[in-house]
């Protein structure tokens, strides 16, 4: 499809700029004036609307296709929460920071406060801040809080953060952004971080250990409480990556297990749309004695029931401009309020049921490296298909031809040819059955006609793209 720039016709306009009701001002000084106009496309509004409507049709999305992308929790995004989130469009955040301005924005401040309380209860933490703008941003904020904690205790020698080799890449990257060196622990044959190696790695130089629970294999870590205890014994803090929280709502609370800091991905567990790769929202929660290190400012509830904004002088400072991605937070608040206690418990129960059903029906044809009850997702390997020269990516591309978004492939890194399936609770048995049939068909085809899988996809606007060429050419904008 042509680029919008290629559809540009000089002199054509889309939207009319408002007429001026003030006199024209003297021109801006030459030294600071832009020389040439910004070369933006000149298209009529209908051209514009057709262009982006047609572009949108080149996407798979939750609203159009089953999207079992493991680790991403691609659940249905309820429409009423969209409406609810949009109610605050005209609210200027600076109002809250003006002297006396907080009384004008009691509604949004109440939502920030109440959402923080809801998340604290759901995760078993003392307090929550919604300031981080995405999961990885939450991780970095959480590690900064941990660094502040050690520093406040005069404990300056801790320079390592421990992560399992199955962790999301953001974990080590976030810890590195906060200035730590990384120690990576391999996965043991039982599918979890090797406990003995972890014990050996622990020392008084370790600041924190970061874990995902259930882990990235979709399994509930059997040693999780023990790991927390070992870390605490060595003076390190424990960080809970909330990527997989959707599996355990109302069943387990990271705070009860012994985690000190957590982040939550509102765009996963709490049903806000993924937006083609963002915006997300990554609030963090902490245990009691870490509250003082949370970023500034804090939204507080005063004695008279009103809400205000307070500086948080001992905190790590500011990690984003205001109170976080409020539009996303308002949707998550609406989602939690809509579902309520029983609804949230049902989310996890049905998510786990769906994943186990998927696992039970596919394990005849696909290698299941860890054959045990899974939580909200299951990880297969295409190793049997590989015997016929078919890779996980070939199965993935064939699914596209059959109208399904592929699962996550090649993650986690500790499973060869990984295929990670997370159906989520919002999919019906019938939808999953249809997907399972195509997966089984792909497995048959791997034996009988692998070439068809190698050619896939053939139904999309473009076939497999030359990524090597893209990386070498570095063509990232048009002339």
């Amino acid at each position, binding site marked *: 499809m042509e680029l919008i720039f290629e559809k540009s016709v000089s002199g054509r306009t889309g939207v009319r700029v408002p007429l001026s009701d003030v006199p024209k001002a003297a021109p801006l000084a030459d030294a600071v004036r832009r020389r040439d106009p910004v070369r933006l496309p000149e298209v009529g509004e209908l051209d514009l609307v057709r262009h982006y409507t047609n572009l949108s049709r080149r996407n798979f999305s939750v609203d159009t296709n089953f999207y079992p992308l493991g680790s991403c929790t691609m659940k249905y995004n309820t429409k009423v929460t969209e409406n609810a989130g949009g109610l605050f469009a005209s609210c200027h955040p600076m109002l809250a920071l003006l002297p006396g301005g907080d009384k004008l924005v009691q509604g949004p401040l109440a939502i920030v406060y109440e959402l923080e309380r809801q998340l604290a209860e759901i995760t078993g933490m003392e307090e929550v801040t919604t300031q981080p703008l995405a999961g990885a941003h939450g991780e970095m904020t959480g590690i900064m809080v941990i660094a502040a904690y050690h520093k406040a205790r005069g404990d300056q020698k801790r320079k390592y953060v421990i992560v399992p080799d199955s962790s999301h890449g953001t974990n080590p990257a976030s810890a590195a952004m906060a200035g730590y060196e990384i120690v990576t622990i391999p996965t043991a044959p039982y599918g979890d971080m090797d406990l003995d190696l972890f014990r050996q790695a622990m020392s008084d130089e370790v600041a924190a250990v970061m874990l995902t629970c259930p882990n990235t294999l979709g399994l509930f870590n059997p040693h999780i409480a023990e790991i927390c205890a070992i870390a605490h014994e060595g003076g390190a803090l424990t960080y809970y990556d909330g990527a997989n929280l959707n599996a355990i709502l109302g069943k387990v609370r990271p705070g009860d297990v012994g985690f000190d800091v957590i982040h939550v991905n509102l765009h996963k567990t709490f049903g806000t749309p993924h937006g083609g790769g963002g915006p997300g929202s990554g609030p963090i929660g902490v245990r009691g004695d870490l509250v003082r290190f949370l970023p500034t400012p804090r939204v507080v509830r005063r004695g008279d029931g009103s809400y205000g904004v307070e500086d948080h002088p001992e905190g790590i400072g500011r990690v984003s401009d205001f109170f976080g991605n409020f539009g996303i937070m308002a949707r998550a608040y609406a989602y939690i309020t809509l579902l309520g206690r029983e609804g949230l418990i049902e989310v996890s129960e049905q998510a786990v049921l769906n994943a186990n059903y998927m696992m039970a029906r596919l394990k005849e044809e696909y290698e299941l490296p860890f054959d045990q009850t899974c939580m909200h997702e299951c990880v297969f390997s295409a190793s049997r298909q590989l015997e016929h020269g078919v890779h996980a990516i070939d199965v993935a591309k064939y699914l596209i031809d059959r109208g399904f978004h592929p699962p996550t492939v*090649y993650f986690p890194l500790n499973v060869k040819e990984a295929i990670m399936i997370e159906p989520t609770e919002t999919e019906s048995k019938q939808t999953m059955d249809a997907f399972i049939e195509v997966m089984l068909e792909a497995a048959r085809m791997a034996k009988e006609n692998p070439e068809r899988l190698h050619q896939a996809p053939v139904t999309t606007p473009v076939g497999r793209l030359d*990524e*090597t060429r893209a*990386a*070498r050419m570095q063509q990232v904008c048009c002339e």
Partner: protein
Amino acid sequence: MAKFYTKEHEWVEMAGAQATVGISEHAAHELGDITYVELPKIGKSVKQFEALAAIESVKAASDIYAPVSGKVAAVNQALDEAPELVNQGAEFQGWICKLEGVTEAELGALMDAAAYDEYLKGL
């Protein structure tokens, strides 16, 4: 003089006090289509087995470690424009850099071609 190899799949070939360094054919094959080689700065000093350069393909990135200690005397500038030279001949036109001030004594910690072949079989 013959090539010597590291366990991390670098090779080194010495000529007097100067050595040419690259990655092995095996490593180039494993990485797939190379998209970028981060060449070291000329004049940089490295100790044996320290990070020297880095190499990327579409889906992987890895460090290249110095097979021997020395100072970077020259780099294969052609790789800037044509990183695929590493795929075409990792142990020939796809060399990475030349080190000076190297000593043969350090070769003792490396494998010769036959030993490296054996090592690859064991992987």
